[in-house]
């Protein structure tokens, strides 16, 4: 069966510091991968998605970036965090070349102070 891992679970970072969140998927090959953010009291905002190694589509202009160095690894990064980057970050995967269900990881709670 497929599983998705995210770490860390919680993170407190000062403004201006870098960020690296990692997501890995097990039990499937060539998945579509997604990064979402849920701000307090808001819905899920799609940040990036990837349909293959090195292929990243950005949905929202911001100071975040994403990379996919391996088939089942997806990384969310920032060089300098802003206060507005605080939120709950979720990684998700779906089967390649489908629009079907996305399956989410446990999330990372990021607080920028």
């Amino acid at each position, binding site marked *: 069966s497929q599983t998705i891992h995210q770490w860390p679970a919680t993170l407190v970072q000062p403004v201006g510091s870098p960020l690296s969140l990692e997501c890995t998927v097990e039990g499937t090959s060539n998945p579509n991968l997604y990064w979402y953010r849920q701000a307090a009291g808001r819905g899920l905002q799609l940040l990036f998605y990837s349909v293959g190694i090195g292929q990243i589509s950005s949905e929202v202009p911001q100071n975040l970036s994403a990379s996919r160095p391996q088939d089942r690894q997806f990384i969310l990064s920032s060089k300098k965090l802003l206060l507005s980057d605080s939120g709950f970050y979720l990684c998700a995967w779906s089967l390649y070349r489908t629009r079907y269900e*996305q399956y989410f990881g446990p999330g990372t709670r990021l607080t920028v102070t």
Partner: protein
Amino acid sequence: DQQVKQNSPSLSVQEGRISILNCDYTNSMFDYFLWYKKYPAEGPTFLISISSIKDKNEDGRFTVFLNKSAKHLSLHIVPSQPGDSAVYFCAASAWLGNKLVFGAGTILRVKS
């Protein structure tokens, strides 16, 4: 531009009664719809989906209804249980798209 709208921020229902969560969409290209359930500090979990070729899909206590002419879908939970208390997100996908568009969510509280 909110393409998927959940106009009720919250809903409170008595245990054993029916919960009805609503969702409206504006993009006529959407042809696949999903409902997710989310507990605090956890990732959303997939509940049920429906293709635009259907108007109803049922899975246990959960039924999703789709009214394409009204661009409206609803999730019925019968009977509601305290463990159903969570945030429910509606999501939609367009043909040939890799993405889901999510609504803002509705907080469901089931009182025992």
